[in-house]
């Protein structure tokens, strides 16, 4: 039943990741640190304060009434914003479908959140429509989210348009949340609308940006296979697969483009990380969280 979540747990349980898992927990908690959410303190009594809130011991030590400030352990909201358009049915740079990496990354974050009693929601969709799965804090709910991502992302889905999902988030949510955006290389390339939305959302929410690298069609591994452009379902001609000059130029262009996207997000103040395979997910997320926490402090 919860096979997708099972894969996430398995991934986290991999021996090499065990240490990271603990660290991930820490990094996750740190995400909300500094917001004084989990922080209780004392302050001087002001008329009108609840008498029950007076810390008598501290008052006795100091000599003037002090109020113990309880911050109710608030449930944080983690919203996964995932592109489930046709583009994500395509292969990633590592050779697995981008969807699988997206599910894994969303699953790991969601799992951490659920374990910390936070609520996880999902905004997924393509150019044809956006689906919202409300915020809940259970593992079965997380499994359901991952299933939605899994089912929506297919070759028959609409074309990807992340702006639609970002706009949905802008219109729908008024509370502050942690947005985990799962996008691909094409999401920010020359998209003015997306950038404006990202800036706008950044003002309201905490944003972590996960980029999933697209496949390199000039790789020799695919030379003997048919290649389909998910945008129009047409075959890509085979001639470029043997052209070494073209391959070099392609690699250079991808590097430039990736750097440009990361740079854009960096300038807005959003931490981002690019993942290319499933092995990349756990260490990649750790790097992302760590980088994010460091940058903020």
């Amino acid at each position, binding site marked *: 039943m919860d096979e997708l979540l099972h894969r996430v747990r398995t991934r986290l349980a991999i021996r090499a990741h065990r240490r990271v898992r603990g660290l991930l927990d820490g990094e996750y908690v740190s995400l909300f640190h500094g917001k004084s959410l989990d922080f209780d303190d004392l302050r001087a009594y002001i008329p009108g304060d609840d008498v029950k809130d007076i810390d008598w011991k501290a008052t006795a030590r100091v000599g003037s009434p002090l109020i113990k400030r309880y911050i109710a352990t608030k449930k944080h909201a983690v919203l996964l914003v995932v592109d489930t358009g046709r583009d994500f049915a395509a292969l990633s740079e590592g050779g697995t479908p981008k969807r699988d990496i997206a599910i894994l990354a969303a699953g790991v974050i969601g799992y951490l959140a659920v374990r910390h009693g936070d609520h996880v929601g999902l905004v997924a969709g393509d150019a044809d429509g956006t689906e919202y799965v409300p915020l809940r804090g259970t593992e079965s709910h997380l499994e359901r989210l991952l299933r939605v991502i899994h089912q929506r992302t297919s070759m028959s889905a609409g074309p990807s348009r992340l702006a639609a999902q970002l706009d949905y988030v802008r219109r729908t949510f008024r509370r502050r949340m942690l947005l985990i955006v799962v996008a691909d290389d094409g999401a920010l*390339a020359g998209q003015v609308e997306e950038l404006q939305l990202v800036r706008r959302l950044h003002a309201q929410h905490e944003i972590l940006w996960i980029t999933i690298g*697209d496949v390199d069609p000039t790789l020799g591994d695919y030379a003997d296979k*048919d290649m389909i452009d*998910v945008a129009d379902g047409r075959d890509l001609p085979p001639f470029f697969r043997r052209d070494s000059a073209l391959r070099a130029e392609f690699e250079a262009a991808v590097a430039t483009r990736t750097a440009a996207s990361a740079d854009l997000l960096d300038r807005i103040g959003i931490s981002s990380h690019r993942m290319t395979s499933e092995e990349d997910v756990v260490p990649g997320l750790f790097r992302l969280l760590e980088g994010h926490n460091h940058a903020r402090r």
Partner: protein
Amino acid sequence: MELMYWWMPLLWLVVTAGVIVLALWLHARRRARNLADAVPVAHSDRLTELPAYRTALARYRAALFGAVLVVSLVLVAAVLMSSRLVSISTYQPEMRNRDIVLCLDVSGSMVDYDAAIVRTFRDLVDNFDGERIGLVLFNASAVTYFPLTTDYRFVQEQLAYLENDLSSPLSDYEFINGTLLGEGSSLIGDGLGSCVLRFDDVDKERSRSIVLATDNYVAGRPILTLPEAGALATERSVRVYGINPGDVSSKEYIAEFANEMKQVVLATDGGYFALADPSAIPSIVDGIEQQQTTRLTGEPMLVRTDEPSWPFVLSVLGTALIMYFGWRLKR
């Protein structure tokens, strides 16, 4: 230009269409089967907007276009070759079944003319192919110098020898031997009659003609008169072409003979030429030859000649180019 098997292009059309349909079907089937295994790629514009991709695509398209062009050219060549491209020409076969007997009066006054005739025939023999030629010399009696033959080397030798004999200042007039055995001299009728009898294979359909060079100045009593000999020639459908150096105004005293000869010769459906100068002989003989040729052309025939050369060259070159483009496309 015409196709011998006009239905062949239609067959090709059907077969080519069938092959194309089959190829498309196989391709579609293969693609459907490989679809599950196909590599889905997003954001192909990352690749397709590269200048290197554009140039590669242009090269690929050029190679494809070239391949299609060459394949169609080779196909056209194959269609033309298999439907047998023929050129059609009407051909009038020149019937090389002529027999010519040179019938030369070797009386003293005729020697120069005889030499010119012999010289001209030496040139003509080079072009003979299937014609037979014979030579009869006559004065009082007729001597077969050589019978009708196609052995042109022998004919050349004999003509050369005779020409030398006729024209050389050192000549011993060997050719006269045997020509003076009759009663009198210049027995033209006997000479012509003898010449008519030189034709063999009378049953066979051959063109028979005599080139008779004489001044028709008879001195003596011939067995056959010239008109009688002419009648014999007509009876055996032998044309007589007369060359008469005596039929000129300076020799009016023999005008009667010339007249007789002209009538006899024309009666055989031949030709008559009066002249004073031996140097006119070659053109006359050529004329006779020409006349004979035109008369002897047979029924016009429709000849179809296969013209496979340029489609063949095209297909060979095209096949080489197909290999080249195939290599370019597969590379």
